[in-house]
């Protein structure tokens, strides 16, 4: 049995989501929700039920939910959509964002926007101090991740929401990693726009949503039909929507218990690893973080090699973000936290979730230190025995 510790990349599909999707497909699955006929109406019911479930997960009114193809599209829609007609020249973001925020913001910078990237402390947290003065009447958009996917730090989004609100700027929060991991409502967060993603919470990949606060206007990325109240043309991915809704429902009803369980397993894994890997370092805040995420620097090894070695032993983890060819780059998040390039290269991410069991954690806690010792020994011995430079 393989041990899957990569929930932040994509959680395994929850049985509840799988069953709901099966019911939808087996029940016909046909019918465009925009159609007038019975089948269309059936599909529309599935769509709107799921919308209500997803909305409830984040305490939002159903009408404010726009279904997208995933977190990346949600972030693109939020960022490009919010500044489409902006007369203000500035966008505020941070140095530790997901690539689907970095790339749109960089593109807008190329088109003439001024971009301010707030820096984080060595735990990866943003501080209000000195950061609020850039959020002013010149700021069109503030776009920040709530929980960081690589090391789990949670940001004080309410503080930034207040600053954005008093400056009259749009506040977008990427909650792809926070939704389903911490209790939240869009009201409390104070955001205008919130991205969420189905496969981070155990729904299928390829479906996400953007919360758009009523009254906040957004230019669409896709033009076409009037679907999703004009914010996203095209027939939505219905099967995905159904799975998303079912996953959201299960997360909402069991959130407290599940998160308590995951937090306990994650703390146990960290404790066991710290006891058997001398010099192991947890990156990110000890407390203000999503509890499922452990970003760890393993001394004396390349994270890339450790990741492959663990995969061959049946433990699936990840590191930074993969390049197109499938190699891994050192994490820009860790570099932004002041880690050296070599520390970043020695760091990997373990992320637990709904499917993680105590047995998984106990086996991982046995296997990981053993594999780490082998990798570290191979790297050390090889340095020792390397032939003299030639020429």
């Amino acid at each position, binding site marked *: 049995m393989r041990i899957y510790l990569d929930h932040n990349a994509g959680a395994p599909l929850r049985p509840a989501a799988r069953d709901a999707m099966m019911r939808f497909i087996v029940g016909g699955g046909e019918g465009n929700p925009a159609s007038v006929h019975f089948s269309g109406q059936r599909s529309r019911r599935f769509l709107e039920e799921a919308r209500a479930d997803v909305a409830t997960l984040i305490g939002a009114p159903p009408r404010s939910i726009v279904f997208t193809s995933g977190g990346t599209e949600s972030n693109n829609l939020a960022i490009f959509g919010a500044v489409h007609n902006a007369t203000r020249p500035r966008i505020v973001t941070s140095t530790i964002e997901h690539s689907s925020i970095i790339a749109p913001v960089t593109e807008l910078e190329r088109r003439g926007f001024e971009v301010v990237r707030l820096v984080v402390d060595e735990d990866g947290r943003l501080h209000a101090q000195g950061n609020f003065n850039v959020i002013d009447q010149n700021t069109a958009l503030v776009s920040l991740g709530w929980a960081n996917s690589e090391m789990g730090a949670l940001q004080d989004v309410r503080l930034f929401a207040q600053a954005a609100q008093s400056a009259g700027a749009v506040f977008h929060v990427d909650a792809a990693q926070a939704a389903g991991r911490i209790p939240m409502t869009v009201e409390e967060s104070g955001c205008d726009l919130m991205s969420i993603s189905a496969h981070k919470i155990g729904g299928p990949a390829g479906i996400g949503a953007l919360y758009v606060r009523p009254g906040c206007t957004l230019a669409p990325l896709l033009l076409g039909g009037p679907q999703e109240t004009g914010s996203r043309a095209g027939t939505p991915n219905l099967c995905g929507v159904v799975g998303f809704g079912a996953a959201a429902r299960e997360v909402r009803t069991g959130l407290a218990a599940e998160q308590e369980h995951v937090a306990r397993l994650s703390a146990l894994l960290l404790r066991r690893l710290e006891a058997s890997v001398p010099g192991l370092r947890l990156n990110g805040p000890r407390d203000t973080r999503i509890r499922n995420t452990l970003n760890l620097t393993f001394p004396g090894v390349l994270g890339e*090699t450790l990741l492959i070695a663990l995969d061959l032993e049946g433990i699936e983890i990840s590191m930074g973000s993969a390049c*197109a*060819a499938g*190699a891994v780059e050192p994490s820009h998040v860790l570099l932004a936290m002041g880690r050296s390039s070599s520390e970043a290269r020695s760091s990997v991410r373990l992320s637990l979730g709904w499917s993680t069991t105590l047995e998984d954690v106990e086996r991982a806690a046995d296997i990981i230190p053993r594999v780490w010792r*082998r990798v570290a020994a*191979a790297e050390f011995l*090889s340095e020792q025995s390397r032939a003299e430079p030639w*020429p």
Partner: protein
Amino acid sequence: MNARVLVAMSGGVDSSVAAALLREQGYDVVGVAMRLAPEWPPGIRQRRSTCCSHDDFEDARRVAERLNFPFYVVDLRAEFRANVIGNFVSEYLNGRTPNPCVMCNREIKFDRLWQRAAALGADFVATGHYARIKRDEGGAFHLLRACDHAKDQSYFLFTLGQREMRRTLFPLGNLSKTQVRTLARGLGLANADKAESQEICFVADGNYAAFVSQNAQPAQIRAGSIRDSSGEELGRHNGIHHFTVGQRRGLGIASRAPLYVRTIDAETGDVTVGRRDELVSDGLLAGMVRLAHPETLSGEDIPIEAKIRYRHPALPAILRILPEARAQVRFLSGGPAVTPGQACVFYRGDEVVGGGIIEARLGR
């Protein structure tokens, strides 16, 4: 448990078939593509077949998927830059013509990659090289030419010592290229008829001089004169790294008879040219000499066959071992142009008994 072997996969047909053969033989195969060269400038990759491009990785990945073994990409760019590209550039700047494949095999494939292999619990590293490793009754390892002499790549592997050979597998050593392609087709590999990569993998357009210029400090570029054998200046050039001994084209000199580069002097910047017959040498002096089994090469004058460029045939010669890892090689009959920086590999029959890097030609 089956022995685990890390197979270096380029996406080409050779390494793909090597992996397939090992899998058939029951090894626990782990495929690895090495990320070595810096990223290509956009648009260049399409122009010619190379290795370590994104498409090549995808080809390798498809083979691994088809044959159902795990496949990973490992990043060795820093090591490759430090040990292979750095050496390549400095050799050219010093008036020599390096062979980066020799250096890559020594430093990357059979050293740094082995380090990764050991970390992954592998017992062996395998590549798609055409060469053989034989273990004798006493337990010593010998590097032999491939059965397919036309494809033989033992020339690039002469630096492998006992330590490296013990943990290395060359599954294609007994096969011909035709057989390998047939096997690839039989396995349904999409790359069965893929063109061979020939040129140096990290120089995208084959323009070595431009690559060296881009990777050198301006102060390192050695401009100078082009002279004939009598020392008379025939013209000027803007860097000795534009030349290689034996080169005919691109000299920028008008002459009745074709002229060839005879010598390159990194001290003065002089490039001497001459007629073809002036290139002929009696032998060469090699440095950084490695001997596979020094104890078996006794005596003053050791008969060998010397191969001084990958595409040249091995020539009968007399080897004399000198102190400080040097050696003198004298051709039995007139030898061809000797290019400093290239490898001179010593053969006895099919066996590689040693080799070194050419430092100078021995004149007539």
